[in-house]
């Protein structure tokens, strides 16, 4: 119980006021105390005090936490339930539902970019041959969560260095190519890199990067998360860049928290130095460059969904909105509860499908009310979930990353919006 014991004081700090009930998306669906921070924290307290033994049910309640931090933001004493749940997953690893499947996914698939590519290839093949329709009901539902996959990955379609001509003041930045950016949404990564280059920056996209380790850390697998984090830190150190930019909310938040991953070790300083260089692309564009926005785009109404990993993990709220509002032709319309979790939460939707859909439906209702043509968001996992929700409700709304619209405005988007 070492990891959990570290949080003992914080666990005692929960005053059971129930403020988490007002905001927890899972509680709104399930309506039972075990599925809200107050209950989970109490369960951890009883486990620490030895009054409750670790059990599958305990693990299930821990597992049902989205990690969205809505409760943390609303908590009077400021209990970091998300971190406590990460520690709890570590302690309860053997009891977690789907523990073996998840471990396999994380340790074998996500750890190695080549294996991940191969898995995506199999899915594409299955869809082309239409054998995916033969999957049993529950699995088919989960396969439906995956978006249409691109013909080529980012890496295959991109030749390094063609446009990387140092312009202006010769600033050199690194671009962290996420698993999702490479495999699922390469058009976003392309738009991001082109936009950065147009701002006069030299963009390095190092070859040796691996998964950011977010999923491993969230599932309580510290060792694996550290291993991958260290590899990324080394790769970017070699690249000698002033900043590490990402178009992925989750990768960004994971990398900005690398220091915490190495707390108390010899690598902590190096990790902190790296973490300080990491920036979400919207923040970097709005704060660190004299932004060129181009000629604008045809008139369109856009709304924005705050990814948990941007708004509450990185405190990014205004930059993406500012970016969108600075593009000519866009009418920006805020949606109700824009900062409420969509229920995607990495692989949460795969393993807790029903709850995830309950959370998603509320988001889609608010989206529909805006009457927007486009929904912008800075997180590929949210995007998959939101696209699924839009298909599910038969709506005609496209999901985009803010930089895709900026690329369009700058005349850089050679491909139409999805």
């Amino acid at each position, binding site marked *: 119980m070492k990891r959990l014991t570290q949080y003992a004081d914080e666990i*005692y700090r929960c005053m059971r006021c129930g403020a988490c009930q007002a905001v927890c998306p899972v509680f709104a669906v399930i*309506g*039972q*105390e075990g599925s809200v921070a107050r*209950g989970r924290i109490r*369960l951890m307290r009883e486990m620490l005090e030895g*009054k409750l033994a670790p*059990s599958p049910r305990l693990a299930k309640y821990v597992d049902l936490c989205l990690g969205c931090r809505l409760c943390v933001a609303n908590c009077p004493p400021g209990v970091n339930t998300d971190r406590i749940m990460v520690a709890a997953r570590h302690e309860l690893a053997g009891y977690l539902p789907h523990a073996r499947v998840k471990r396999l996914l994380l340790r074998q698939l996500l750890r190695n970019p080549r294996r991940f590519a191969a898995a995506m290839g199999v899915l594409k093949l299955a869809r082309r041959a239409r054998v995916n329709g033969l999957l049993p009901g529950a699995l088919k539902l989960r396969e439906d969560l995956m978006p249409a996959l691109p013909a080529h990955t980012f890496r295959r379609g991109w030749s390094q260095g063609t446009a990387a001509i140092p312009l202006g003041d010769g600033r050199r930045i690194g671009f962290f190519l996420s698993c999702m950016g490479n495999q699922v949404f390469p058009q976003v990564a392309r738009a991001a890199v082109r936009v950065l280059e147009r701002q006069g920056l030299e963009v390095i996209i190092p070859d040796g990067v691996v998964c950011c380790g977010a999923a491993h850390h969230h599932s309580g697998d510290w060792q694996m998360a550290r291993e991958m984090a260290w590899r990324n830190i080394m790769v970017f150190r070699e690249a000698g860049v002033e900043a590490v930019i990402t178009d992925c909310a989750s990768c960004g938040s994971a990398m900005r928290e690398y220091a915490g991953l190495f707390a108390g070790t010899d690598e902590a300083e190096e990790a902190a130095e790296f973490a300080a260089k990491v920036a979400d692309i919207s923040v970097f564009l709005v704060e660190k460059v004299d932004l060129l926005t181009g000629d604008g785009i045809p008139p369109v109404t856009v709304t924005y969904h705050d990814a948990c990993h941007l708004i509450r993990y990185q405190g990014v709220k205004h930059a993406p909105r500012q970016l969108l509002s600075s593009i000519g032709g866009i009418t920006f319309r805020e949606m109700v509860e824009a900062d409420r979790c969509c229920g995607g939460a990495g692989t949460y939707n795969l393993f807790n499908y029903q709850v995830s859909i309950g959370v998603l439906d509320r988001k889609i209702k608010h989206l529909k009310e805006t009457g927007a043509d486009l929904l912008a968001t800075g997180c590929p996992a949210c995007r998959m979930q939101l696209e699924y929700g839009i298909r599910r409700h038969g709506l005609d709304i496209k999901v985009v990353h803010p930089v895709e619209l900026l690329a369009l405005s700058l005349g850089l988007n050679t491909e139409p919006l999805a």
Partner: protein
Amino acid sequence: MLSDNFLTELRKIVGEDYVLSSPEDLVCYSYDAVTTTHLPDVVVFPASAEEVSAVLKVANGKGIPVVPRGGGTNICGASVPIKGGIVLAMNRMNKILEIDTENLVAVVQPGVVTGEFQRSVEAHGLFFPPDPQALNMSTIGGNVATNAGGPRGFKYGVTRDYVLGMQVVLADGRVMRVGGKTIKNVTGYDLTKLFTGSEGTLGVFTELTLRLIPLPEDKRTLLAIFDALPDGARAVSAIIKAKIIPTTLELMDQEAMQLIEASRPCGLPTDAASAILIEVDGSPVDVPVQIKKVAEVCAGCGAREVRVAATEEEAAQLWASRKAAFAAMARSTPTVMTEDITVPRNLLPVMVEKIKQIARKYQLRIPILGHTGDGNLHPIICTDERNAEEMARVHVAVDEMFREALALGGTLSGEHGIGLEKKKYLEWELGRTGVDVMRDMKRALDPNGILNPGKIFLREDGE
């Protein structure tokens, strides 16, 4: 421990999925917002009055305790199943059945979250004023059961003033309707009022008929800062004498302001004795006149500064300080205990001074928030429940506070309830006869003592 047969019976009534009895689930229903906890034997989630009635019938037959639960957010221990038994979690019954815009009433199930209900009626231009701090997670049923108040109490009254009728299931499972959609109703005893504030000890609400009023069109806020506490109190009296009834008159004492500024700077003066946050509402014609008058009165009573919000954003900024108060206190200490003694309005500065003396005497940190319009004070004891020696001092200090409040003609609880936390003091305020009459009523309605046992009264029958 309940028998398997009994659990099977409960499952038959509400369905397999709505009976929880694992140790993990019992832990999750062993608490509310007080520190005392106790495990129930089972948690049941009924979906209708019929199901509530059936559960009560079988429980009554076997003498098994039943504790109705809404949001579980109260701070008097009303939802803690101190004698075990069944927790009856009412949050599946969460429908707004009707918003009647012609009669200005709403009919709701008890599990509706108060804040959601307020937003729903406000969409019709209507207003349900009771605003307890927990309104975004507490339920209407829980608010009626504890007769919850809130900052708007002085102008708009408390939950009791908005309950017109109810459907309630009695301990033996009989279903009763009292009151209704009419404002006037003197048919027999006022049972609606009796059940309101009964903390789940007399019956279980399954439907509530609530009074609504038109939503005020406009409001304005100001913050008045005083160097001496009695000046603030004089200002409050002077405002009321000037025939203005503000919506809220929220007091923050110096210690509260210092804590807020340390945790989330809002520009409060940490060297002033107190600040009062005043909001007025009404028609767009009235409101500017009211706020101007309030500002003048405050200045005339020696306010060293009066900040009037010109815009909604400025008003939100002024409110931000008051809203940050509870979090600031919670973050400053492992345990906070919020009391809610209430005294006649004109004696509020006297009571504040008494609380400060008590805090000094027992070396405790007790910042004070309060609703000055209705004399309702929240001394917030910042302590650590794991420190037995300090907790002993806390208990003596609380005893003393209550004694002082009663001596001033006040009451133990303005808006939180008695529950577990204050039952020891009940007789101090009501006297032997008062307590006996209440216990007689309890005995008449719940002869087997199954409904929320161990609450309000120090001794149960047979103890």
